[in-house]
């Protein structure tokens, strides 16, 4: 099962590699990983997506908690949450395709943020499966490149991951 794990970690050199190293050393899957400082500059927030049986996920969260730099973490599979991922897609355009790509982008609530005579860059946010669906809807031959942030997530309601 897919799990999104969100982590508060000391914003120190090498903290990211402790997490990444743990996953490779213990043979855990890591689908995506995103990290940036929080409003408290001594802390970073990391969101990672992994897959595994319940036993494996339990081990993953325990092993993560054991890392000295990790302050707190939450596995969103256990809680109602909202999930967003950012994607940028660069597509080839010409007079014939421009309208169609425009409409498609609108349907998926994308924004065109760069235009040249023969390309668009489309910005889109949403849950990962929506982004997948948009990429599938585009003509693969027209895609020049895509870049995705990996999902970030937050629990619903007033509770949050903080100190």
């Amino acid at each position, binding site marked *: 099962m897919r799990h999104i794990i969100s982590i508060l*970690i*000391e914003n120190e*050199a*090498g903290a990211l*590699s*402790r997490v990444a*190293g743990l996953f490779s*050393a213990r043979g855990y899957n890591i689908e995506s990983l995103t990290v940036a400082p929080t409003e408290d500059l001594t802390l970073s927030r990391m969101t990672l997506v992994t897959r595994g049986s319940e*036993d494996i996920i*339990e*081990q993953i969260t*325990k*092993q993560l*908690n*054991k890392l*000295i*730099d*990790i*302050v707190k973490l939450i596995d969103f599979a256990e809680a109602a949450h909202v999930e967003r991922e950012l994607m940028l897609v660069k597509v080839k355009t010409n007079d014939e395709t421009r309208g169609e790509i425009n409409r498609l982008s609108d349907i998926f609530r994308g924004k065109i943020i760069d235009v040249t005579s023969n390309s668009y860059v489309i910005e889109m946010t949403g849950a990962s499966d929506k982004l997948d669906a948009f990429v599938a809807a585009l003509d693969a031959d027209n895609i020049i490149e895509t870049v995705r942030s990996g999902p970030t997530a937050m629990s619903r309601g007033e509770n949050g991951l903080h*100190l």
Partner: protein
Amino acid sequence: MELSGGQIVVQCLKDEGVEYLFGYPGGAVLHLYDAIFHQTAVKHILVRHEQGATHAADAYARATGKPGVVLVTSGPGATNAVTGIATAYMDSIPMVVISGQVPCAVIGSDAFQEVDMVGITRPCVKHNFLVKDVNDIAETMKKAFYVATTGRPGPVVVDIPKDITDPNIKVPYKYPKKIKMRSYCPATKGHPGQIKKAVDLILNAQRPMIYSGGGVVLGNASAELTELTRMLNFPITNTLMGLGAYPATDKQFVGMLGMHGTYEANLGMHESDVILAIGVRFDDRVTGKLAEFCPHATIIHIDIDPASISKTVKVDVPIVGDVKIVLNQMLDVLKEHKKKPSKKALEAWWSRIDQWREANCLEFDRDSELIKPQAVIEQLYEVTKGNAYITSDVGQHQMFAAQFYHFDKPRRWINSGGLGTMGFGLPAAIGVKLAFPDADVACITGEASIQMCIQELSTALQYKTPVKIINLNNRYMGMVRQWQEFSYESRYSHSYMDTIPDFVTLAEAYGHVGIRVEKPEDVRPALEKAFAMKDRTVFIDFITDRTENVYPMIESGKGHQEMTLRVAPGTPIDRELA
């Protein structure tokens, strides 16, 4: 007080009460060594190889309970220490390793003797630090000792670039009395509800077994474990790392369990209905085939590390906490409980265990004309009256030591259990002897293991640490040969050495006494002679039966109930096994 970075490191060690620093100098730690030169409080032990420093410090920690401290230089000094760091990590030994690093300005430029020590050691330390500001040294050192010694202990590396120890840059020094880390709060008390559940299970058990390990030794909870075990009259087995936590000569002790454990311990585990696992980690050498591990048992597991719970074996009642505190909580609940364990059930269970004991699974050929390794350990036990500190290397001799030296006290059995590091024994013996100069210290080893850190014989002379080296010389890497015999149709691929040094003259060359023993009747006199020489390191080279194997054995991939015993086919035990 204004001090340089180098002086601060040394002052931190003093303030931390460090007695011995095991190390080896080099370019990146010269400022530090100069600071060491100007003081006497912290005694520096100059080893002959950095691996020796880590093993000696590790063993000092195992024997005393205090953290071992190591100082090595950057690059090869640091990488040589890695085996010892990993050894300590696998056995959860508190250790602080200070490594020099190239100056901050050249980090990352492939400078002379530069390695990414923080990166290299990350998977085999509890935590590590790179200090990039002289003002951070004191707090980092405090954190290092705090992290290494609390919770589930482990090694911590502090990597210090050379410019940070510059004697010309002085800053105010203050060693923090206490430290708090928001990201690190080890568990202490066990959950009362879980303890109650555990006690209910224990009191209703028909065929209980206590399975205790290294955590009890590390957590100084031997007395509590012993009280609990005796109060309940349950059988108890120890892991390799747990030997000595419960007196091995006590009638309730059924021996070590696992791959080379006793028949009664392993079958007891297999048939048990309630297992009380204390400070253990269900290591593969203990469990054998996981799918067949303790099929009838409800398992209670006490451990300080939540990640140890249900890692390989799913447990029913986990209790996370400090073992000493949890056992005391458990004792309190038990003492107030009206119910007592069923006498009738225990009587039946003990008689079943006594039947297994009759298999006499550790018996060996006592009439052999060759020296049996088991006989050497047995006599070592008798000559030292069971009071010696025993360090060991890794292989058959390690298992014979675990089976035949009956440890009645914790912290007396010093071996590399998790990593299985050959070369551990000799430097370990030196570390223990420094801690306990008046005690007998013996290193049980083999002719292959001892050669991995033989250079430390020189250290033993310099620091006058008269240890006894019990070399069970079978001219084979015995355990490798045994596996090749069992699983590779006796194709002894590179499990022997065509050239073996003359250990007697080698010992003499290092300034020690060497004795060779070739006949069974000479074993005891040699041991007595060696231990009578209180102030000399003695290397006794026992030429043993080279075909001897360690029994019982659970072969790889088999369960506890499928042990191989040293019995002739057709005996009652053999039939029972079939």
